[in-house]
């Protein structure tokens, strides 16, 4: 039996992004002994990369804003497939979560009267995104990190040990969740992982696990996501018997860098457009005016003049179509490039240089200015940028209870942040993720604490043989001989997903992808890793690949099943949105080696919330008999 380290905790949070840290703070403040485990160093989680801002209807810039408006925007953005309760909680609680950050030391940009400034973003009716230049995610992570440090300082004072109640296990990867029984029956009893640094194994005995592991973008070739985004949390949950939903909905951000090749996919923040940037094709045409879909016709400007006026007088003009929800813009760019009107490196032009003075650009978009200067030798105050769609965010994720983040299928499993699903429906609005992390991170932390509280002394214990199995599984790649190298397999998987289950999908291509995934599965099971366990990236990737392959299969199978186009799922062979499909969630679960997909009805929105919308708008999404209780319903 390999040796391992063992720790006891009340709550173990996997992930130190915004969701994970907020959950940990909530659990610790509820008096629970809490561990945070993460793959990279403390303070480096993916959330640092978020740029544009955090959406909360504080109404600091336009006081017409309130939670109802935010709720409506969120539902529209998600094409009414959002879990309504999550969208409601999110819209209601986001302002408090943002204000709380200030209390912990965050320094957002200010309005003239000293409040938190808010900026425009795609799909948000009013300026709503609290921000710090274009490095909002960094501010969020650092603030939460420093809040954790302050809690530790308190513990040091009170208990003599800074890590007595809250400890961060950095560069430690969880590879398995431990149960007290078979998957499907068992409750969470612990988690198994390894330290990246030494390769040493570690077991956490805990009754509650909060999975806040972020997204899955690394399964795609062109992505704004980092290596961390291998979908571990989803795979962990599924292997423990949990369910995952909405996996077909993947957000392709319209503006990623396309050149040079080595940075292809790196995000160009939406704030460029929020602050006045426009999209042009190779003919110099502002093409977005040609792509306003019917459902949005009444909400967007139809002439350049009106769109331009909106920046200074938003109350009396409609916003320009560059600020349509991301799925619309990404598809539009894709079509322009396909029609041969793309830029030299296969994107379109994003122009801020001709719209704002160099000083304003450098002040408002400092990191974009540097990013292009340093990575592409392009001065965005002088030249337009070349941009194209990049895989950015997964709307789908672990199925959770909206109020507590609890998994409906595995007791003791909680989830929040990008790893969980439902909140954003078929498409997420920019800025709604950071607020989602805080709102549901906190709720999951509290949910987990309450669950542990409820267990009393009856804590489930992990089965020893499962620990051995987990250790064997982790070491397997060293024992195979003559297998392939994980880097090659990873590249093939990325290429497959990018080409065949990418932004535009067809039945034949997805089937082809599934065929290849099936083959890759076998090859992954036999891959070989050289060297030893001490900080060995080849081995790390090998283990991450096992998550990626599961998640990729979910995406492909769900995409094949949903025969309509909606939000982050576009089928060339089924180009329209169908109200029959709106009420269906696709739920994935793992049985042995196989992914199973079942249809599950979407929770039905309360009439109170339904009444926040006009009947005429709802007609575009909902079937008529779903609307019979609407106040404007024609009897």
């Amino acid at each position, binding site marked *: 039996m390999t040796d391992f380290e063992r720790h006891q905790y009340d709550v173990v949070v996997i992930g130190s992004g915004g969701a994970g840290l907020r959950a940990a703070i909530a659990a610790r403040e509820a008096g629970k002994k809490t561990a945070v485990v993460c793959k990279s160093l403390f303070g*480096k989680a993916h959330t640092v990369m978020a740029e544009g801002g955090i959406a909360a209807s504080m109404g600091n810039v336009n006081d017409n804003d309130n939670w109802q408006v935010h709720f409506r925007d969120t539902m529209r953005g998600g094409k009414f497939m959002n879990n309504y309760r999550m969208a409601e909680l999110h819209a209601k609680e986001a302002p408090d979560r943002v204000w709380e950050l200030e209390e912990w*030391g965050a320094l957002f940009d200010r309005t003239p009267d000293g409040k938190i400034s808010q900026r425009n973003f795609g799909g948000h009716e009013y300026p709503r995104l609290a921000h710090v230049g274009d490095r909002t995610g960094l501010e969020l992570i650092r603030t939460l990190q420093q809040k954790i440090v302050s809690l530790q300082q308190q513990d*040091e004072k009170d208990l003599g040990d800074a890590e007595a109640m809250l400890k961060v296990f950095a560069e430690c990867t969880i590879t398995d969740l431990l149960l007290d029984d078979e998957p499907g029956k068992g409750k969470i009893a612990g988690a198994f992982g390894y330290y990246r640094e030494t390769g040493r194994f570690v077991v956490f005995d805990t009754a509650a696990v909060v999975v806040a592991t972020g997204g899955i973008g690394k399964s795609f070739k062109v992505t704004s996501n980092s290596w961390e985004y291998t979908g571990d949390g989803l795979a962990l949950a599924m292997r423990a018997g949990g369910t995952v939903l909405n996996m077909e909905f993947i957000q392709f951000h319209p503006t990623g860098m396309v050149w*040079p090749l080595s940075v292809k996919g790196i995000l160009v923040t939406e704030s460029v457009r929020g602050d006045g940037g426009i999209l042009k094709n190779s003919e110099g045409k502002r093409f977005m005016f040609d792509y306003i879909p019917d459902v949005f016709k009444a909400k967007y400007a139809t002439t350049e003049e009106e769109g331009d006026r909106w920046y200074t007088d938003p109350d009396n003009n409609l916003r320009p179509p560059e600020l349509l929800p991301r799925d619309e813009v990404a598809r539009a760019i894709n079509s322009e490039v396909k029609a041969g009107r793309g830029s030299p490196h296969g994107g379109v032009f994003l122009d801020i240089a001709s719209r704002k003075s160099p000083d304003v650009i450098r002040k408002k978009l400092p990191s974009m200015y540097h990013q292009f200067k340093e990575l592409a030798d392009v001065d965005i105050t002088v030249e337009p940028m070349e941009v194209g769609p990049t895989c950015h965010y997964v709307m789908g994720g672990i199925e959770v209870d909206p109020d507590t983040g609890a998994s409906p299928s595995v007791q003791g499993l909680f989830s929040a942040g990008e790893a969980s699903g439902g909140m954003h429906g078929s498409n997420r609005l920019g800025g709604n993720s950071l607020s989602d992390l805080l709102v549901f991170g906190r709720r999951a932390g509290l949910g987990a604490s309450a669950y542990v509280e409820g267990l009393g002394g009856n804590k489930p214990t992990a089965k020893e043989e499962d620990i051995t199995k987990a250790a064997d599984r982790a070491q397997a790649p060293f024992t195979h001989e003559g297998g392939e190298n994980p880097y090659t397999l990873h590249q093939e998987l990325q290429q497959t997903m990018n080409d065949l289950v990418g932004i535009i999908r067809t039945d034949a291509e997805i089937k082809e992808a599934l065929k290849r995934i099936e083959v890759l599965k076998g090859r992954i099971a036999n891959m070989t890793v050289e060297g030893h366990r001490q900080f*060995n990236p080849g081995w790390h990737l090998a283990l991450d690949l096992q998550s990626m392959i599961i998640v990729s299969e979910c995406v492909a199978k769900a995409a094949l099943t949903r025969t309509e186009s909606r939000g982050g799922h576009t089928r060339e062979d089924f180009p329209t949105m169908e109200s029959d499909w709106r009420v269906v969630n696709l739920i994935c679960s793992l049985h042995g080696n196989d992914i199973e997909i079942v249809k599950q009805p979407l929770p039905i929105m309360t009439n109170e919330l339904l009444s926040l919308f006009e009947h005429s708008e709802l007609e575009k999404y909902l079937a008529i008999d779903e609307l019979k209780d609407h106040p404007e319903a024609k009897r």
Partner: protein
Amino acid sequence: MAYDASFRVWRGNTNGGELTNYKVSVNEGEVVLDIIHRLQQTQTPDLAVRWNCKAGKCGSCSAEVNGKPALLCMTRMNTFTEDETVTVTPLRTFPVIKDLVTDVSFNYQKAREIPSFTPPEGLKPGEYRMQQVDVERSQEFRKCIECFLCQDVCHVIRDHEDNKPAFSGPRFFIRQAELDMHPLDTASRKRDAQEKHGIGLCNITKCCTEVCPEHIKITDNAIIPMKERVADAKYDPLRWLGAKIRGRQPGDVE
């Protein structure tokens, strides 16, 4: 545009190691991190390196390139000539773990020694009012991505291991400056900067500023102003007198 470059990468761990030569192909627009990844993919899969964002945002990929502390993901290959040998080593101020990965826990330890933001009592969330001009100085310091390159280059600890306990380093001087200049922070931090964090050990030779990938003016905007604030609190007899007359502590908020 593609060519074969000569690389020298330090391979090893605490027990020792060596600079190892590689030939590896380079394409247009690539950065050093791309080349390290190519080495992993094609020649040496267990080459250890830290990275996350590959866009200069997370501060993970800190190392030294041709002897200079730098982010691997922001060091473009076209800054070297094609026949130049590029040497990549781990940070040399912190203990090495393996290859290009070092143990930077020193920094997390130091972070914990600085008292957190202390808002005025009774101020409720949502009631915070701050002017943009008052937050701007601190915002500059909050751009820090904690790459610890400044900590690495600082000779106070790079060349003198024995100073580590007494010296927090530039990253944490900017943190103190950030809090001391925060319009709503109420804690007093000036004496601490000198007495607990060793700002007096800094001889303002500015290497930290030179390497900071976020272009934070560490020395000019944080360390020197902090040194001046320390002087207010500790070394200026006139201010001491002035403060006594007004019944305050020298170095109190104005």
